[in-house]
């Protein structure tokens, strides 16, 4: 079908051009652009054939039932747990965890920022550890347990880190927020087990737990970029959850109140 499209474009009679009443230069230019566009679309579709065929197969099989034995070239069967629910998928081997979550499981909370491991927007927890879902091939996760931003809350009850981000206005556009929150949750577990960072003064003695300064929080969260620059509020939110003590807000509504959700 794609080859047919390419052949049609290449074989088209210039006399068929509906813009032939326009000056020759304009007509040629428009025809050229049209042909190139159609050819480009055909080539892109052709290039993505394996991906498209997998998507097509996926549509025909429920995401919650095993699609084993589909017979796709380069397909892999993956069984893993996402937010407590077990999933069994047959995926193109190239599928990242991020694309699996967003395109196959309708969990669009994890965001695709750079797709190259540089921004942190796709951060999720695998076996409780924060990782980048955009650089994780789903095929490697057979048997693993994944927690995304959708899995942190208990029903309508926000996870303490989510509530703290709301209280401290730890975002503006919100695009980096799911990654920031998952990263912060994983980060506090690392601190609880005494892990060090590059700004930790004493590396030789491993403590039972680390009390985090603002500098420690900043260094440990450096893998999550916020282009709106909500960093001071993000640090406040994390500090509140980390210490368990109230940290006062630095903002208020125009009417002078600070309570959220009243």
């Amino acid at each position, binding site marked *: 079908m794609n080859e047919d499209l390419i052949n049609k474009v290449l074989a088209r009679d210039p006399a068929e051009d509906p813009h032939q009443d326009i000056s020759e230069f304009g007509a040629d230019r428009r025809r050229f652009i049209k042909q190139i566009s159609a050819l480009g679309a055909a080539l892109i579709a052709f290039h993505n054939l394996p991906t498209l065929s997998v998507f097509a197969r996926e549509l025909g099989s429920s995401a919650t039932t095993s699609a084993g034995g589909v017979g796709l070239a*380069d397909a892999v069967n993956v069984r893993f747990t996402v937010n407590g629910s077990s999933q069994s998928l047959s995926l193109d*081997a190239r599928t990242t965890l991020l694309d699996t979550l967003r395109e196959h499981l309708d969990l669009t909370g994890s965001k695709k920022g750079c797709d190259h491991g540089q921004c942190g927007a796709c951060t999720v927890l695998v076996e409780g550890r924060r990782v980048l879902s955009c650089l994780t091939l789903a095929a490697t996760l057979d048997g693993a347990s994944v927690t995304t931003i959708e899995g942190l809350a208990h029903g309508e009850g926000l996870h303490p880190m989510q509530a703290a981000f709301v209280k401290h206005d730890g975002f503006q556009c919100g695009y980096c927020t799911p990654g920031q929150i998952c990263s912060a949750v994983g980060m506090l577990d690392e601190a609880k087990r005494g892990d060090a960072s590059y700004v930790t003064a004493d*590396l*030789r003695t491993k403590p039972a737990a680390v009390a985090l300064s603002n500098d420690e929080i900043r260094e440990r969260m450096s893998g999550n970029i916020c282009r709106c620059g909500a960093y001071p509020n993000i640090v406040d939110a994390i500090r509140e959850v980390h210490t368990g003590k109230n940290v006062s807000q630095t903002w208020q509504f125009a009417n002078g109140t600070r309570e959220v959700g009243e």
Partner: protein
Amino acid sequence: MRPFHYTRATDQPAAISAASAAGSKYLAGGTNLVDLMKEDVERPSTLVDITRLTLKDIHPTTNGVSIGALAHNTETANHPLIRQNYPLLTQAILAGATAQLRNMATNGGNLNQRTRCPYFYEVGMPCNKRDPGSGCGAIGGINRMHAIFGWSDKCIAVHPSDMCVALAVLDAQVKVAGPQGERTIAFTDYHRLPGDTPEKDNNLAPGELVTSIEIPKNNFAANSYYLKVRDRSSYAFALVSVAAALEMNGKRIKQARIAMGGVAHKPWRALEAEKVLIGKDATEANFRAAADAEMANAKPHDYNKFKVELGRRAIVRALSRAANGGAA
């Protein structure tokens, strides 16, 4: 990304056998390889997933410590044995990447990560490392991040690792297994200079798998420091980094080990600087003389001349902090 065949290795012989086929590559943490595949720089026909192999152990040996090739960077940096005895390694690992990446990245993968030279990454540009014979875009191009030591007229890329700079100082050994059996490679012989074959980053033979890194005992733990100078204070590759380790006898330097990152195709062991320091007092003047001896051999390019003076000062500061027990 181009299609590839995925296979999960259940044991080491199966992994080596699968990875010995042309076009096959090992997949561990994937933090660099998956990215390079997205960029169309790496085009493996088969990925051999080795994450289920039992090469994750970190344990004491009669002569030091053994760290498994598949132990994650995070576990390695935070292992009590490493923190207590090799804080330089902890510091270097924690200077690299981000927590998420260190949670994914393995020790073997850290050794085998590829340069972040933008000409290597951009498939529209010539690059002898990516496409041998196509030329080098960085020579005569924007070469601010590039090598000042050991480069060739084929390639001026630098090795991006921080961890490896510390391992070069710690006289580590790399254990590998391959189709021809097992062997051990001295860490400073593991990576190579570009010469006429910059497509080869290291001296691994096809199909060879890093199984562990062995670090001998030393007396550097009290006086070591990893200094990383970069464009922002976190999550950036080094412009220049220095791993410095001293064994002190009072104020006298008994042994000195120095290596630099961000300056060469491999972790650059600063042997000229080390020679100057043996038997000398730990003074700023002696540190400066050591730095001058090393940097005298630097050959910068149009955009990275600053690395010579930066490298000199970084050596002095790293040695000062090492002599001072890591404190400023």
